[in-house]
């Protein structure tokens, strides 16, 4: 406890003794986390919007026209038994015709059309749009299903966009984390350099590596957490401002994730990243001074 108190005192003293270095470190963490946070926010929202669109994507499974409505309805269980099926809606021939006529704005040209020319059908909603092709095959294999209509191109497009956004975000976040660790390490290395005589002296009077590292770890952690907290508040402000502008613009149809949903995970991620960056940064910074 005594030693922890000593580390804290030394770490805090060092932050103020090397004010400019400390300020730079906080700014670096702030900038990196803001960029990371912005990428993550965009990724979350793109995922959310695509997810919403995907929920609306469905496969049309047409029932053989020789089957009665009752027989057609009995297929629901079999369709629901397919793994990737989230929900099904049965549409009768009459309902299908009504919808069709509505689209034709009740044009007199179709007045004489009978529902029997259409088929009963199922609207099949999927759990994972990426597996649409497989589900389409499974549906076609069900006896009584005459044909299956799936927009594979749209589904693949959505999956591709989602993947690209996710990969770009993960790569950017990973890169920025590495950059942050090295910038943090370099700024702390400056602090370590200014204290190299002190480190050499305490080592000669019997300090263990953990004793030497202690104040640097505390310094790094305080800087990391401070940078994270400021970045979190700034990210909050930016998010609210940007989403407010979107809501007031022609893009208002986009369903944006409210900040309240992101707040806790984002805070936890920022603090964890800030701490990780600080710990790795300080380890790298004093590595050279650890040789006995």
């Amino acid at each position: 406890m005594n030693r922890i108190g000593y580390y804290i005192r030394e770490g805090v003293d060092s932050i103020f003794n090397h004010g400019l270095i400390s300020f730079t470190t906080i700014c670096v963490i702030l900038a990196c986390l803001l960029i990371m946070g912005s990428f993550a926010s965009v990724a979350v929202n793109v995922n959310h919007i695509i997810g919403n669109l995907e929920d609306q994507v469905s496969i049309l499974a047409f029932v053989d026209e020789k089957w009665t409505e009752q027989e057609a309805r009995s297929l629901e269980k079999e369709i629901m038994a397919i793994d990737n099926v989230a929900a099904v809606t049965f549409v009768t021939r009459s309902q299908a015709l009504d919808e069709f006529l509505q689209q034709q704005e009740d044009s007199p040209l179709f007045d004489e059309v009978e529902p029997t020319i259409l088929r009963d059908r199922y609207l099949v909603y999927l759990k994972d749009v990426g597996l649409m092709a497989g589900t389409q095959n499974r549906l076609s294999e069900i006896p009584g299903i005459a044909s299956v209509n799936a927009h594979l191109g749209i589904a693949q497009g959505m999956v591709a966009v989602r993947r690209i956004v996710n990969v770009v975000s993960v790569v950017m976040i990973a890169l920025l984390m590495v950059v942050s660790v090295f910038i943090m390490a370099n700024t702390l290395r400056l602090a370590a350099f200014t204290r190299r005589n002190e480190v050499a002296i305490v080592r000669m009077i019997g300090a263990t590596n953990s004793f030497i590292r202690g104040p640097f770890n505390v310094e790094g952690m305080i800087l990391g957490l401070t940078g994270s907290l400021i970045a979190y508040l700034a990210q909050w402000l930016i998010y609210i401002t940007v989403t407010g502008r979107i809501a007031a613009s022609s893009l208002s149809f986009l369903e944006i994730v409210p900040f309240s949903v992101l707040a806790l995970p984002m805070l936890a991620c920022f603090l964890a990243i800030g701490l990780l960056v600080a710990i790795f940064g300080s380890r790298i910074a004093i590595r050279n001074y650890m040789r006995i």
Partner: protein
Amino acid sequence: MISLEHVYKSYENGTPAIEDVSFAMDDGEFAFLVGPSGSGKTTIIKLLTGEIASTEGRVVVNGYDMGTISRRRLPALRRTLGVIFQDFRLIDNRNVYENVALAMHVYGARNSEIKKRVPYVLGLVGLEGRMRDMPKELSGGEQQRVAIARALANNPRTIIADEPTGNIDPELSAELMKLLSKISEQGTTMLVVTHEHDLVNQFAKRVIRIVNGRLASDSKGWYQA
């Protein structure tokens, strides 16, 4: 307790620094380690503090065999030693009290102990009134006395003083040496490295003389450079 048995040390380029050096010091013994510049005195100090390892032979310090000691155990050995350097090696941005207290923090001493012990050891070296002063506000002699207080802080079994009078006035040197001698009388093994033969000759102590990396003599009394 210090013991060197047939110790050799060569540097990476093959230059021998010391060859076949053997001597031992009992607990509480006082000895001067003397010799001209480049004779190998500093190499012996580095072997004793674990900064370097011998090429051949056995070095034992306070029960630690320096040939087999692990890096992890090295701090424990160093805590049994008090080292005094020619250039004092005080931390500039800490005051006298903090410089001495640091050695006790390293040792893991409690704050209450530190508060008691630091004024006590500073009193032993006559600096109880200068606790809040920064090292730069002190004379060379005073700075060296702070370094002695720091070395004494953890009540070490052995003190190694490397040219402790090298950077201070000659008239203060004898006084400082008397202080080290007094400390030794309390049971601390004291190895003082110096090349000031006049100073050595004022004290009838054991003199270990190294010349060209070899033990030239080991006797009580005085020596001629």
